[in-house]
């Protein structure tokens, strides 16, 4: 039971912090937000490998779609500075990724990977998800 409650708390605490409004990706756009332009240059391919290697997938799942343990991260991640700030010093349940274990370049690569994720198919195109 404790795990169950922890999961709920985790999602509730960090969801707002790490994901853009969920309707946004339905536009099909993967263009970065204005603040995301501040992101240092990253390598999306390297970021994909690092996303798994540094265990982001453990809570946010393989496609960064999120799940019961952590929110969706991409596509259309939150602005880079907010992303980096949360990664280094999370206010919720997420374990911190300090500079000692994750360099700024790795953070940039991860962010590039999240930005490069393809949009999902439109909700309207999936019969199984109709009410």
């Amino acid at each position, binding site marked *: 039971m404790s*795990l*169950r409650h922890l999961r709920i708390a985790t999602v509730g605490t960090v969801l707002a912090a790490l994901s853009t409004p969920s309707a946004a990706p339905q536009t099909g756009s993967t263009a970065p937000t204005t603040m995301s332009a501040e992101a240092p240059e990253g390598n999306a391919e390297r970021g994909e490998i690092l996303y798994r290697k540094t*265990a982001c997938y*453990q809570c946010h*799942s*393989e496609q960064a779609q999120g799940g*019961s343990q952590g929110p969706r991260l991409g596509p259309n991640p939150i602005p880079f500075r907010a992303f980096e700030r949360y990664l280094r010093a999370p206010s919720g349940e997420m374990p911190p990724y300090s500079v000692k274990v994750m360099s700024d370049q790795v953070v940039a690569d991860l962010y590039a990977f999240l930005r490069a994720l393809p949009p999902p198919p439109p909700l309207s195109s999936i019969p199984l998800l109709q009410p």
Partner: protein
Amino acid sequence: MARPKRPEHPKQPRRPKQPKPSTPLSMERRRFLRTGGIVGAAALVTPPEIVGAQLAGQPPSRPPATPVMTMEREATPPPDVEVLTTDSSGSDFMVDVVKSLGFEYICANPGSSFRGLHESVINYGGNQQPELLTCCHEESSVAMGHGYFKAEGKPMAVMAHGTVGLQHASMALYNAWCDRVPVYLILGNHGDAAIRRGAEWYHGVQDAAAMVRDYTKWDDEPRSLTHFAESAVRAYKVAMTPPMAPVVLVADGHLQEQSLDREGTLSVPRLTMPVPPQGDSGAVAELARLLVSAENPVLVADRLARTPATMPLLVELAELLQAAVIDKGGRMNFPSRHPLNQSQRAAAVIANADVVVGLEVTDFWGTVNALRDQLHRTTRRLTKADAKLVTITTGDLYIRSNYQDFRRMAEVDLAIAADGEATLPALIEEVNRLITGDRRRAFEARGAQLAEANRAAFDRARLAATYAWDASPVSTARLCAEIWDQIKQEDWSLVSSYYSDGGGWPRRLWDFNKPYHWLGDAGGGGIGYGAPASVGAALANRRHGRLSVAIQTDGDLMYAPGVLWTAAHHRVPLLSVMNNNRAYHMEAMHVQRMCNRRNRGIDRGNIGSLLTEPNIDYGKLGQALGIHAEGPVTNANDLAPAIARALAVVKRGEPALVDVVTQVR
């Protein structure tokens, strides 16, 4: 709507006639028992009164020579005075007692310490009511009883060795304890050291129930058959009285196997179940006043639904008040798509509440507070400072010390120590009495807002499910959507799923609206519950013609996969769809948290938690255990046909499994 039966209070039976063995197999068993199965070869040549014992008042003499067994000696008939067979045994009477309690099934992995009872169940009792179910592990036996109760509303009996069997069963027993589920465990034990066979020393114990006494509600080791009957009936009564919990009854081996020579003097006590305690009328009136005057009341239900009557009562109360409901999922308390169901936005409604009522909530402190798992653990209150907090729970009536499942002490304004379900009718009546026209109009406005929030949460869930929709491994959202598509027209029951709590996909996407649509989870967090509990629940659902579905995790199945054989052997229709993420993933995340916190090795956190190299082929595993099984499915587009094939098998009355390799979350 089919409803699980309430516990039966059967009439006291007359001792049924012993069925005559009709098959060659049972003839063979009888013959075995008559030719030394009970007494042992040594007793044929040694007077029973000196076997294994010293004569009082005499110096130790030279031990009797070990008899040399020869063919000639074996062929020699025993002395006329020695009785080698009997037509009626103590365990026959024990079966009378067990039958009087209405048990449908009795699970066991066979063990010699209860061989007398075993034989009486299958021969004297005719292997009906209860029918013996063959299990491959005592943990499976108890967890099957756990799942069976949650679908049927009455306990299953389990037999096990008093030592090694109970040791195997103990984790499942702990889960049942934490989940407040009654399991009726009968342990075999040879208490009299003077007449123990060799193996019975390993299986003998002074106080069999001692090792599980901290997480069982009551136990006894009867010294006579009259004592057994009274304790057996008492154990049932104790187990089924809220708060319900497992009980242990020791059936002494000698008592089982002794001839029944006092048949006329034995009787089974009448069972009268106590009425569950209802909340004090003054306290209920005070709660009704708080609820009617509140602007944002929240009803939180966890292990509230004790019987199928609960859900309609909670719906009635919620609709009267147009109050938000959070179903924490310990039981099936509230329809998932009811407009007042706010489980998907629990944090928001708790934060906005001015009255929070916990209805049989296991962790009420954790409902209204949060503990942050960082290097320095901190807590914070989730509700407004002036929010009124109320609990109704039998948890206030019974608590033990050693195991800490009682959770942190919650500071509340009103604690009603009573059964939640039993208290709801009085609360509804009192709320009805207090509602004025003005309040009703305010409630309607509130209800409209909550309904809109519920719709929005459902839309968000559907949208979230689109992400990774076509991914390989298959996303857990896709897995659940594919299953739902094929069962929604059936009379279904989700018997187990690790991901069916408030944040899980089934609860977000499926329409849960019947008491048996969801049965809660393991209770104590002991992994290995899912597979056997699913089989037990499916066994109960079989009688009602329901389709039982389990979303089966891989780590859970690997604890005791032999239960799939039990399902095949007893033809238990169960659709198991694997959520196979090839890891003990929750634990991987815990270790990852430590890596990050300690600034080292963040790329090594999954060492020790992965179930890869080699990957486990659950399709072949299922096939080896005699069930229809296929997979691994890695392409989401292959999932629907695989589920359809398995479903066809289940509809024929057999178990089936589809192994699906899934995303980790």
